Protein backbone atom coordinates (compact mmCIF):
# COMPACT_ATOMS: atom_id res chain seq x y z
CA UNK A 1 0.00 0.00 0.00
CA UNK A 2 1.23 3.47 -0.81
CA UNK A 3 2.36 5.42 2.25
CA UNK A 4 0.89 8.92 2.49
CA UNK A 5 2.14 9.82 5.95
CA UNK A 6 3.95 13.10 6.50
CA UNK A 7 5.76 13.89 9.72
CA UNK A 8 3.97 16.98 10.88
CA UNK A 9 1.68 19.81 9.99
CA UNK A 10 4.52 21.85 8.46
CA UNK A 11 5.24 19.08 5.99
CA UNK A 12 1.53 18.58 5.44
CA UNK A 13 0.87 22.11 4.24
CA UNK A 14 4.15 22.53 2.35
CA UNK A 15 3.46 24.04 -1.04
CA UNK A 16 0.52 26.18 0.03
CA UNK A 17 1.51 29.66 -1.04
CA UNK A 18 0.04 33.14 -1.24
CA UNK A 19 -2.88 33.49 -3.61
CA UNK A 20 -3.90 29.85 -3.76
CA UNK A 21 -7.41 28.41 -3.58
CA UNK A 22 -8.06 26.18 -0.60
CA UNK A 23 -10.98 23.99 0.34
CA UNK A 24 -11.51 23.52 4.06
CA UNK A 25 -13.78 20.79 5.42
CA UNK A 26 -16.15 21.19 8.31
CA UNK A 27 -19.60 22.57 9.10
CA UNK A 28 -19.52 25.41 11.58
CA UNK A 29 -16.72 24.41 13.94
CA UNK A 30 -17.57 20.72 13.60
CA UNK A 31 -14.97 18.62 11.81
CA UNK A 32 -12.64 21.45 10.86
CA UNK A 33 -8.92 20.88 10.22
CA UNK A 34 -7.74 22.73 13.31
CA UNK A 35 -4.07 21.88 13.02
CA UNK A 36 -3.67 22.97 9.41
CA UNK A 37 -5.61 26.18 9.96
CA UNK A 38 -3.38 27.12 12.89
CA UNK A 39 -0.25 26.44 10.86
CA UNK A 40 -1.52 28.48 7.91
CA UNK A 41 -2.17 31.30 10.38
CA UNK A 42 1.28 30.87 11.93
CA UNK A 43 2.98 31.03 8.54
CA UNK A 44 0.91 34.02 7.50
CA UNK A 45 0.14 32.71 4.03
CA UNK A 46 -2.10 35.33 2.47
CA UNK A 47 -4.25 36.32 -0.47
CA UNK A 48 -6.08 33.02 -0.14
CA UNK A 49 -9.39 32.07 -1.67
CA UNK A 50 -11.14 29.80 0.80
CA UNK A 51 -13.98 27.46 -0.13
CA UNK A 52 -15.71 26.32 3.03
CA UNK A 53 -19.31 26.11 4.13
CA UNK A 54 -18.73 28.62 6.93
CA UNK A 55 -16.10 31.11 7.93
CA UNK A 56 -15.56 30.02 11.51
CA UNK A 57 -16.17 32.29 14.48
CA UNK A 58 -14.18 35.33 15.49
CA UNK A 59 -11.52 33.45 17.39
CA UNK A 60 -11.60 29.97 15.89
CA UNK A 61 -11.45 28.14 12.59
CA UNK A 62 -11.24 30.26 9.47
CA UNK A 63 -12.01 33.23 11.73
CA UNK A 64 -8.35 33.06 12.79
CA UNK A 65 -7.28 33.49 9.17
CA UNK A 66 -9.68 36.39 8.75
CA UNK A 67 -8.28 38.16 11.77
CA UNK A 68 -4.86 38.11 10.16
CA UNK A 69 -6.27 39.25 6.81
CA UNK A 70 -5.05 36.13 5.05
CA UNK A 71 -8.27 35.59 3.13
CA UNK A 72 -8.83 37.55 -0.07
CA UNK A 73 -12.02 35.80 -1.06
CA UNK A 74 -14.44 33.60 0.81
CA UNK A 75 -16.74 31.15 -0.98
CA UNK A 76 -19.30 29.85 1.51
CA UNK A 77 -22.98 29.24 2.08
CA UNK A 78 -23.38 30.79 5.54
CA UNK A 79 -21.13 33.32 7.22
CA UNK A 80 -23.00 34.48 10.30
CA UNK A 81 -21.56 34.33 13.81
CA UNK A 82 -18.46 36.24 12.82
CA UNK A 83 -18.23 39.98 13.51
CA UNK A 84 -14.77 40.47 11.97
CA UNK A 85 -15.99 38.77 8.82
CA UNK A 86 -18.94 41.13 8.59
CA UNK A 87 -16.70 44.14 9.13
CA UNK A 88 -14.27 43.12 6.38
CA UNK A 89 -17.15 42.34 4.06
CA UNK A 90 -18.92 45.65 4.56
CA UNK A 91 -15.65 47.60 4.31
CA UNK A 92 -14.83 45.88 1.04
CA UNK A 93 -11.62 44.30 2.32
CA UNK A 94 -13.01 40.84 1.77
CA UNK A 95 -14.57 39.46 -1.39
CA UNK A 96 -17.44 37.07 -0.68
CA UNK A 97 -19.31 34.67 -2.89
CA UNK A 98 -22.31 33.13 -1.21
CA UNK A 99 -23.68 29.97 -2.78
CA UNK A 100 -26.34 27.50 -1.73
CA UNK A 101 -25.05 24.79 0.58
CA UNK A 102 -26.13 21.94 -1.67
CA UNK A 103 -24.54 23.62 -4.66
CA UNK A 104 -21.32 23.99 -2.68
CA UNK A 105 -21.33 20.30 -1.80
CA UNK A 106 -22.22 19.16 -5.29
CA UNK A 107 -19.60 21.33 -6.99
CA UNK A 108 -17.07 19.53 -4.78
CA UNK A 109 -18.58 16.17 -5.70
CA UNK A 110 -18.41 17.09 -9.36
CA UNK A 111 -14.69 17.84 -9.06
CA UNK A 112 -14.07 14.59 -7.23
CA UNK A 113 -16.05 12.61 -9.77
CA UNK A 114 -14.54 14.25 -12.85
CA UNK A 115 -17.75 15.95 -13.92
CA UNK A 116 -17.19 19.49 -15.26
CA UNK A 117 -20.63 20.81 -14.35
CA UNK A 118 -23.88 19.86 -12.65
CA UNK A 119 -27.49 21.01 -12.82
CA UNK A 120 -29.39 22.07 -9.73
CA UNK A 121 -32.72 23.81 -9.18
CA UNK A 122 -31.23 25.74 -6.24
CA UNK A 123 -31.13 29.44 -6.95
CA UNK A 124 -33.30 29.48 -10.08
CA UNK A 125 -34.99 32.86 -10.28
CA UNK A 126 -32.66 34.39 -7.70
CA UNK A 127 -29.49 36.45 -7.93
CA UNK A 128 -27.51 33.21 -7.52
CA UNK A 129 -28.47 32.30 -11.08
CA UNK A 130 -27.46 35.67 -12.53
CA UNK A 131 -25.20 35.21 -15.53
CA UNK A 132 -25.45 31.44 -15.37
CA UNK A 133 -27.01 29.07 -17.85
CA UNK A 134 -30.51 28.01 -16.86
CA UNK A 135 -31.88 24.99 -18.61
CA UNK A 136 -35.20 23.22 -18.58
CA UNK A 137 -35.41 19.46 -18.09
CA UNK A 138 -38.81 17.81 -17.87
CA UNK A 139 -40.57 21.10 -17.26
CA UNK A 140 -38.29 22.27 -14.43
CA UNK A 141 -35.55 24.85 -14.58
CA UNK A 142 -32.02 24.10 -13.40
CA UNK A 143 -28.93 26.25 -13.07
CA UNK A 144 -25.71 24.88 -14.47
CA UNK A 145 -22.97 25.13 -11.86
CA UNK A 146 -19.30 24.36 -12.49
CA UNK A 147 -17.07 21.93 -10.64
CA UNK A 148 -14.70 23.63 -8.21
CA UNK A 149 -10.99 23.85 -8.80
CA UNK A 150 -8.91 23.98 -5.66
CA UNK A 151 -5.14 23.82 -5.30
CA UNK A 152 -5.41 22.15 -1.91
CA UNK A 153 -8.22 20.50 -0.02
CA UNK A 154 -7.71 20.24 3.71
CA UNK A 155 -9.91 17.86 5.65
CA UNK A 156 -10.25 16.50 9.13
CA UNK A 157 -11.13 12.88 9.81
CA UNK A 158 -11.51 10.80 12.93
CA UNK A 159 -9.35 7.86 11.93
CA UNK A 160 -7.04 7.41 9.03
CA UNK A 161 -4.51 4.84 7.96
CA UNK A 162 -1.07 5.17 6.41
CA UNK A 163 -2.54 4.61 2.95
CA UNK A 164 -4.73 7.69 3.37
CA UNK A 165 -8.03 5.91 3.95
CA UNK A 166 -10.32 8.03 6.11
CA UNK A 167 -13.21 7.46 8.49
CA UNK A 168 -15.23 10.36 9.88
CA UNK A 169 -17.18 10.46 13.12
CA UNK A 170 -20.86 11.42 13.32
CA UNK A 171 -21.78 14.79 11.79
CA UNK A 172 -18.11 15.82 11.69
CA UNK A 173 -18.28 14.07 8.33
CA UNK A 174 -20.23 16.86 6.58
CA UNK A 175 -18.19 18.44 3.76
CA UNK A 176 -14.97 16.56 4.48
CA UNK A 177 -15.51 13.57 2.14
CA UNK A 178 -16.55 15.66 -0.86
CA UNK A 179 -13.73 18.14 -0.37
CA UNK A 180 -11.20 15.34 0.10
CA UNK A 181 -12.13 14.19 -3.40
CA UNK A 182 -11.99 17.65 -4.92
CA UNK A 183 -8.49 18.95 -4.22
CA UNK A 184 -5.67 18.73 -6.72
CA UNK A 185 -3.71 18.00 -3.57
CA UNK A 186 -5.54 16.71 -0.51
CA UNK A 187 -4.25 16.94 3.05
CA UNK A 188 -5.95 14.97 5.80
CA UNK A 189 -5.41 15.50 9.49
CA UNK A 190 -6.79 12.77 11.73
CA UNK A 191 -7.31 12.24 15.41
CA UNK A 192 -5.92 8.75 15.21
CA UNK A 193 -3.51 7.45 12.59
CA UNK A 194 -3.30 3.66 12.27
CA UNK A 195 -1.35 1.25 10.08
CA UNK A 196 -2.98 -0.27 7.03
CA UNK A 197 -5.15 -3.25 7.80
CA UNK A 198 -6.66 -1.81 10.96
CA UNK A 199 -9.62 -0.13 9.27
CA UNK A 200 -12.42 -2.28 7.92
CA UNK A 201 -12.46 -1.74 4.13
CA UNK A 202 -16.27 -1.61 4.28
CA UNK A 203 -16.21 1.29 6.74
CA UNK A 204 -13.92 3.63 4.87
CA UNK A 205 -15.57 6.87 3.82
CA UNK A 206 -12.72 8.35 1.76
CA UNK A 207 -10.49 5.89 -0.10
CA UNK A 208 -6.79 6.73 0.12
CA UNK A 209 -6.51 7.39 -3.61
CA UNK A 210 -8.03 10.81 -2.97
CA UNK A 211 -5.60 11.67 -0.16
CA UNK A 212 -2.04 12.82 -0.80
CA UNK A 213 -0.78 13.55 2.69
CA UNK A 214 -1.95 12.40 6.09
CA UNK A 215 -0.83 13.10 9.65
CA UNK A 216 -2.09 12.76 13.18
CA UNK A 217 -3.15 16.13 14.50
CA UNK A 218 -2.61 17.30 18.04
CA UNK A 219 -4.47 19.15 20.75
CA UNK A 220 -7.90 19.16 19.18
CA UNK A 221 -10.15 21.67 20.88
CA UNK A 222 -13.32 20.66 19.06
CA UNK A 223 -15.19 23.72 20.20
CA UNK A 224 -18.95 23.67 20.46
CA UNK A 225 -20.71 26.60 18.85
CA UNK A 226 -24.19 26.18 20.35
CA UNK A 227 -24.16 24.10 23.51
CA UNK A 228 -27.77 22.95 23.82
CA UNK A 229 -28.76 20.44 26.46
CA UNK A 230 -31.81 19.05 28.21
CA UNK A 231 -32.06 18.59 31.91
CA UNK A 232 -32.06 15.18 33.47
CA UNK A 233 -35.23 13.74 34.96
CA UNK A 234 -36.50 15.38 38.10
CA UNK A 235 -36.50 18.81 36.59
CA UNK A 236 -39.60 18.68 34.47
CA UNK A 237 -39.03 21.39 31.92
CA UNK A 238 -41.47 22.02 29.14
CA UNK A 239 -40.95 19.58 26.30
CA UNK A 240 -40.11 22.71 24.33
CA UNK A 241 -36.53 22.81 25.51
CA UNK A 242 -36.11 19.07 25.24
CA UNK A 243 -35.96 18.75 21.53
CA UNK A 244 -33.33 19.86 19.12
CA UNK A 245 -35.82 19.76 16.29
Amino acid at each position, binding site marked *: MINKVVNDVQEAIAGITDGMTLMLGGFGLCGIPENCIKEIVRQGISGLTCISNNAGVDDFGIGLMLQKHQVKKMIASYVGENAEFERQLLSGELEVE*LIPQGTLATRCLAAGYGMPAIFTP*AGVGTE*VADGKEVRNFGGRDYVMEMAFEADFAIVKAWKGDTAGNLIYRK*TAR*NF*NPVMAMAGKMTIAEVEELVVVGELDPDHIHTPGIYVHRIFQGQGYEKRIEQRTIRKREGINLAKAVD*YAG
Partner: protein
Amino acid sequence: MLDKNGIAKRIAQEIKDGYYVNLGIGIPTLVANFIPDGIQVVLQSENGLLGMGPFPYEGEEDADLINAGKQTITMAPGAAVFDSAMSFGMIRAQKVDLTILGAMEVSEYGDIANWKIPGKLVKGMGGAMDLVASAKNIVVAMQQVNKAGESKLLPRCTLPLTGVRCIRKVVTEMAVFEVDSENGGFRLLERAPGVSVEEIRKATAGRFIASGDIPEMRL
Protein backbone atom coordinates in the same frame (compact mmCIF):
# COMPACT_ATOMS: atom_id res chain seq x y z
CA MET B 1 -52.42 35.84 18.54
CA LEU B 2 -50.13 32.86 18.75
CA ASP B 3 -46.72 32.93 20.33
CA LYS B 4 -43.81 31.07 18.77
CA ASN B 5 -44.78 27.83 20.43
CA GLY B 6 -48.32 28.27 19.19
CA ILE B 7 -47.14 28.62 15.62
CA ALA B 8 -44.92 25.56 16.06
CA LYS B 9 -47.82 23.62 17.56
CA ARG B 10 -50.07 24.42 14.60
CA ILE B 11 -47.39 23.49 12.09
CA ALA B 12 -46.84 20.17 13.85
CA GLN B 13 -50.34 19.23 12.62
CA GLU B 14 -48.96 19.23 9.07
CA ILE B 15 -46.72 16.30 9.91
CA LYS B 16 -48.06 12.91 8.93
CA ASP B 17 -47.03 9.49 10.12
CA GLY B 18 -43.98 8.23 8.27
CA TYR B 19 -42.74 11.62 7.15
CA TYR B 20 -39.15 12.64 6.72
CA VAL B 21 -39.03 16.25 7.86
CA ASN B 22 -36.45 19.00 7.60
CA LEU B 23 -36.81 21.72 10.20
CA GLY B 24 -35.16 25.08 9.72
CA ILE B 25 -33.65 27.25 12.42
CA GLY B 26 -35.88 29.28 14.78
CA ILE B 27 -39.60 28.55 15.14
CA PRO B 28 -39.35 25.47 12.88
CA THR B 29 -36.97 23.89 15.39
CA LEU B 30 -39.69 24.12 18.02
CA VAL B 31 -42.06 22.07 15.87
CA ALA B 32 -40.32 18.87 16.99
CA ASN B 33 -41.70 19.42 20.49
CA PHE B 34 -45.29 19.18 19.29
CA ILE B 35 -45.19 16.14 17.08
CA PRO B 36 -48.20 14.10 18.24
CA ASP B 37 -47.53 10.88 20.09
CA GLY B 38 -47.79 7.79 17.96
CA ILE B 39 -46.64 9.58 14.84
CA GLN B 40 -43.33 8.31 13.55
CA VAL B 41 -41.20 10.94 11.88
CA VAL B 42 -37.56 11.13 11.00
CA LEU B 43 -35.90 14.50 11.25
CA GLN B 44 -33.30 15.32 8.60
CA SER B 45 -30.53 17.72 9.42
CA GLU B 46 -28.92 18.96 6.24
CA ASN B 47 -25.40 18.90 7.64
CA GLY B 48 -25.68 15.15 7.23
CA LEU B 49 -28.00 13.27 9.55
CA LEU B 50 -31.28 11.41 9.38
CA GLY B 51 -32.81 10.61 12.74
CA MET B 52 -32.10 13.61 14.90
CA GLY B 53 -32.94 13.02 18.56
CA PRO B 54 -33.40 15.35 21.52
CA PHE B 55 -30.71 17.61 22.92
CA PRO B 56 -28.13 15.68 24.95
CA TYR B 57 -28.21 15.54 28.71
CA GLU B 58 -25.80 17.92 30.35
CA GLY B 59 -22.30 16.54 30.19
CA GLU B 60 -23.10 14.33 27.23
CA GLU B 61 -22.66 16.94 24.52
CA ASP B 62 -20.53 15.73 21.64
CA ALA B 63 -18.76 18.32 19.48
CA ASP B 64 -18.96 15.87 16.58
CA LEU B 65 -22.74 15.68 16.73
CA ILE B 66 -24.59 18.85 15.83
CA ASN B 67 -27.58 19.89 13.75
CA ALA B 68 -27.78 22.42 10.95
CA GLY B 69 -28.25 25.15 13.56
CA LYS B 70 -24.91 24.06 15.08
CA GLN B 71 -26.67 22.95 18.25
CA THR B 72 -25.48 19.86 20.09
CA ILE B 73 -27.95 17.02 19.56
CA THR B 74 -28.30 13.27 19.88
CA MET B 75 -29.19 10.57 17.40
CA ALA B 76 -32.38 8.56 17.51
CA PRO B 77 -32.12 4.77 17.16
CA GLY B 78 -31.93 4.03 13.43
CA ALA B 79 -30.12 7.25 12.61
CA ALA B 80 -27.79 7.43 9.63
CA VAL B 81 -24.93 9.83 8.96
CA PHE B 82 -23.85 10.91 5.49
CA ASP B 83 -21.88 13.62 3.75
CA SER B 84 -23.15 16.97 2.52
CA ALA B 85 -23.45 15.87 -1.11
CA MET B 86 -25.74 13.00 -0.21
CA SER B 87 -27.67 15.20 2.21
CA PHE B 88 -28.57 17.66 -0.51
CA GLY B 89 -28.88 14.81 -2.98
CA MET B 90 -31.81 13.40 -1.04
CA ILE B 91 -33.26 16.89 -0.69
CA ARG B 92 -33.03 17.56 -4.44
CA ALA B 93 -34.43 14.11 -5.19
CA GLN B 94 -37.47 15.06 -3.09
CA LYS B 95 -37.08 12.26 -0.58
CA VAL B 96 -37.86 14.69 2.25
CA ASP B 97 -41.64 14.86 2.69
CA LEU B 98 -41.96 18.16 4.48
CA THR B 99 -39.75 21.20 4.89
CA ILE B 100 -40.49 23.85 7.48
CA LEU B 101 -38.59 27.09 7.43
CA GLY B 102 -38.72 30.73 8.40
CA ALA B 103 -39.11 33.71 6.10
CA MET B 104 -38.63 37.45 6.06
CA GLU B 105 -41.14 37.88 3.24
CA VAL B 106 -43.48 35.68 1.21
CA SER B 107 -45.25 36.82 -1.93
CA GLU B 108 -48.77 35.96 -3.05
CA TYR B 109 -47.20 33.74 -5.73
CA GLY B 110 -45.25 31.73 -3.19
CA ASP B 111 -41.92 33.44 -3.67
CA ILE B 112 -39.83 33.59 -0.52
CA ALA B 113 -37.06 35.88 0.75
CA ASN B 114 -35.15 34.86 3.85
CA TRP B 115 -31.43 35.19 3.37
CA LYS B 116 -30.30 38.73 2.78
CA ILE B 117 -31.06 42.36 3.54
CA PRO B 118 -28.86 44.34 1.17
CA GLY B 119 -26.33 46.52 2.97
CA LYS B 120 -27.51 45.30 6.33
CA LEU B 121 -27.52 41.57 6.80
CA VAL B 122 -25.55 39.16 4.70
CA LYS B 123 -25.30 35.90 6.54
CA GLY B 124 -25.91 33.72 3.52
CA MET B 125 -28.54 31.26 2.40
CA GLY B 126 -27.07 28.11 3.89
CA GLY B 127 -29.24 25.26 2.69
CA ALA B 128 -32.40 27.33 2.28
CA MET B 129 -32.15 27.82 -1.50
CA ASP B 130 -31.66 24.10 -2.07
CA LEU B 131 -34.56 23.28 0.23
CA VAL B 132 -37.08 25.69 -1.29
CA ALA B 133 -36.07 24.81 -4.85
CA SER B 134 -36.49 21.10 -4.29
CA ALA B 135 -39.06 20.40 -1.62
CA LYS B 136 -42.53 19.50 -2.85
CA ASN B 137 -44.11 20.41 0.44
CA ILE B 138 -42.94 23.55 2.21
CA VAL B 139 -44.55 25.25 5.15
CA VAL B 140 -43.31 28.66 6.22
CA ALA B 141 -43.35 29.72 9.86
CA MET B 142 -43.20 33.49 10.19
CA GLN B 143 -44.51 36.61 11.82
CA GLN B 144 -47.29 38.21 9.79
CA VAL B 145 -46.13 41.75 10.45
CA ASN B 146 -42.73 43.24 11.20
CA LYS B 147 -41.89 45.40 14.18
CA ALA B 148 -43.10 48.49 12.34
CA GLY B 149 -46.47 46.79 11.90
CA GLU B 150 -46.02 46.22 8.17
CA SER B 151 -47.22 43.03 6.57
CA LYS B 152 -44.62 40.50 5.43
CA LEU B 153 -47.17 38.78 3.19
CA LEU B 154 -46.67 40.83 0.06
CA PRO B 155 -47.78 41.14 -3.56
CA ARG B 156 -44.07 40.86 -4.49
CA CYS B 157 -41.05 40.29 -2.31
CA THR B 158 -38.89 43.37 -1.88
CA LEU B 159 -35.82 41.53 -0.58
CA PRO B 160 -33.54 39.31 -2.69
CA LEU B 161 -35.35 36.05 -3.36
CA THR B 162 -34.48 32.68 -1.92
CA GLY B 163 -36.85 30.83 -4.21
CA VAL B 164 -39.65 31.35 -6.70
CA ARG B 165 -43.21 29.99 -6.53
CA CYS B 166 -42.28 27.36 -4.00
CA ILE B 167 -44.24 28.07 -0.82
CA ARG B 168 -47.53 26.22 -0.38
CA LYS B 169 -48.50 27.06 3.14
CA VAL B 170 -47.79 29.87 5.59
CA VAL B 171 -48.47 29.79 9.31
CA THR B 172 -48.22 33.05 11.25
CA GLU B 173 -49.24 34.30 14.68
CA MET B 174 -52.60 35.22 13.13
CA ALA B 175 -53.49 32.62 10.56
CA VAL B 176 -52.87 29.68 8.28
CA PHE B 177 -52.76 30.47 4.57
CA GLU B 178 -52.58 28.41 1.46
CA VAL B 179 -50.69 30.20 -1.30
CA ASP B 180 -52.33 30.25 -4.72
CA SER B 181 -49.20 30.37 -6.83
CA GLU B 182 -51.24 30.03 -10.05
CA ASN B 183 -53.34 33.16 -9.72
CA GLY B 184 -51.58 34.82 -6.85
CA GLY B 185 -53.11 35.15 -3.44
CA PHE B 186 -53.08 34.15 0.22
CA ARG B 187 -56.09 31.93 0.80
CA LEU B 188 -57.07 32.08 4.46
CA LEU B 189 -57.62 28.59 5.87
CA GLU B 190 -57.69 29.11 9.62
CA ARG B 191 -57.68 31.95 12.11
CA ALA B 192 -55.67 32.00 15.33
CA PRO B 193 -57.98 31.83 18.37
CA GLY B 194 -59.71 35.17 18.86
CA VAL B 195 -58.38 36.79 15.68
CA SER B 196 -60.95 38.03 13.18
CA VAL B 197 -60.85 37.69 9.40
CA GLU B 198 -60.81 41.47 9.20
CA GLU B 199 -57.75 41.76 11.41
CA ILE B 200 -55.95 39.20 9.27
CA ARG B 201 -57.01 40.97 6.08
CA LYS B 202 -55.51 44.22 7.37
CA ALA B 203 -52.24 42.46 8.14
CA THR B 204 -52.00 40.95 4.65
CA ALA B 205 -50.53 43.23 1.99
CA GLY B 206 -50.73 40.68 -0.81
CA ARG B 207 -53.99 39.56 -2.41
CA PHE B 208 -56.19 38.20 0.33
CA ILE B 209 -58.69 35.41 -0.33
CA ALA B 210 -61.24 34.40 2.26
CA SER B 211 -64.48 32.69 1.36
CA GLY B 212 -67.14 31.28 3.58
CA ASP B 213 -66.70 30.58 7.25
CA ILE B 214 -63.07 30.51 8.29
CA PRO B 215 -62.58 28.14 11.21
CA GLU B 216 -60.40 28.80 14.20
CA MET B 217 -57.28 26.69 14.57
CA ARG B 218 -57.56 23.70 16.87
CA LEU B 219 -54.47 23.61 18.99
